[in-house]
């Protein structure tokens, strides 16, 4: 066995990855030269493992998670989009309570047309009834409703305002609003608010004031 071959085999033997470890073990007992080389490799391995690990910055995790939230897939962005204003709404309840006099003394703000549309159907009763039946039976699902809305020239997709108000009146609200746990979470959400999300929050608060509800 050549010196080079011995070195190659000893390295794998040291790692427990040699093809025939029992043969190498026997060879090492009978070959002082290879045993010496094996000793050197073992010592080198021990020295390598004493190298200290680099310090990981305490902010490492925070930075990674902040970037991950920014780059979250669309599905998660949608969740975030609603969780942020809803959670913020809960936090700003204090502000609402403090400004309750202002809210009560000010004429109710007008809700966006799309919100009003939820309360005042734009379709004839019979078309709504058909659409509801289709949805209930799972036949036309939402298609019938959308087609009917199209025929009236109304935007078929539910607006953000409609979704927010809808969410605020469902069990989802509690689920979403409970997704923040610490002040840091709320801070993160506050910083993440863009103009559109701020507008959604304002609409939500107005809707709540209109209904005389508190969060």
């Amino acid at each position, binding site marked *: 066995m050549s010196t080079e071959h011995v*070195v*190659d085999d*000893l*390295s*794998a033997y040291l*790692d427990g*990855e040699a093809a025939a470890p029992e043969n190498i073990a026997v060879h090492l007992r009978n070959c002082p030269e290879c045993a010496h080389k094996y000793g*050197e*490799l073992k010592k*080198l*391995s021990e*020295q*390598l*493992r*004493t*190298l*200290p*690990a*680099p*310090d*990981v*910055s305490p902010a*490492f*995790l925070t*930075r*990674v*998670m902040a*970037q*991950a*939230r920014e*780059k*979250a*897939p669309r*599905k*998660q962005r949608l*969740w975030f989009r609603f969780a942020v204003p809803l959670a913020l709404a809960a936090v700003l309840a204090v502000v609402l309570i403090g400004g309750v006099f202002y809210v009560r003394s000010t004429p109710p703000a007008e809700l966006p047309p799309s919100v009003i549309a939820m309360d005042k159907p734009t379709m004839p009763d019979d078309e709504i009834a058909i659409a509801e039946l289709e949805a209930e039976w799972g036949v036309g699902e939402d298609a019938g409703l959308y087609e009917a809305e199209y025929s009236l020239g109304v935007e078929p997709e539910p607006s953000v305002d409609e979704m927010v108000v809808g969410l605020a009146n469902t069990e989802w609200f509690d689920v979403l609003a409970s997704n923040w746990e610490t002040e840091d979470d709320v801070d993160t959400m506050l910083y993440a608010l863009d103009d559109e999300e701020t507008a959604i929050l304002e609409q939500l608060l107005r809707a709540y004031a209109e209904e005389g509800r508190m969060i």
Partner: protein
Amino acid sequence: MSDWELVTQARQGKMDAFAELVRRYQAPVMQFTFRMVGSAEDAEEIAQDSFIRVYRHLERLEPKAKFSTFLFGVARNLALNFLRDAKREGRQVTQSLEASAPIGSDAGRPDRTARLREMESAIERGLQLLSAEHREVLVLRELNGLDYESIAQVCECKKGTVRSRLARARNQLRQHMAGDIGDLV
């Protein structure tokens, strides 16, 4: 909870699950990237980028191998890109290793002798003198504890190649250290 169970939860939008994966692997990945690029600052940036890239591709990950193998593979590619760019731009990355000393916290190791520190410095210098393909297998094996199969997956080569590269890497490192500190080795 296993890595893949955390991945499944992270796919569902549970950020805490992904945060747990980061906690588990931030130190090993930092260890690897630091030994590859030789600068703590650059290593941290590469490590962070590795986690972000993995996060962006969570949907595409399949549990055919260990999660850590995939993560180290991303970190390895980013580290090699960094070294390639540094070489092209004429930046000397090995100098920053010495400039960044001490590595880790010596305050917690009052028993560390000057001789040991000298040995560590010699190993660090020796590692930086190895080629990237030899350094990566040695670091993954000795400092990250990966087996040959995992190293082969990370480095996108055959298991036999890992075996021969490791043997050469150890031999070269010993030669560098012998030339550096002589009988201390």
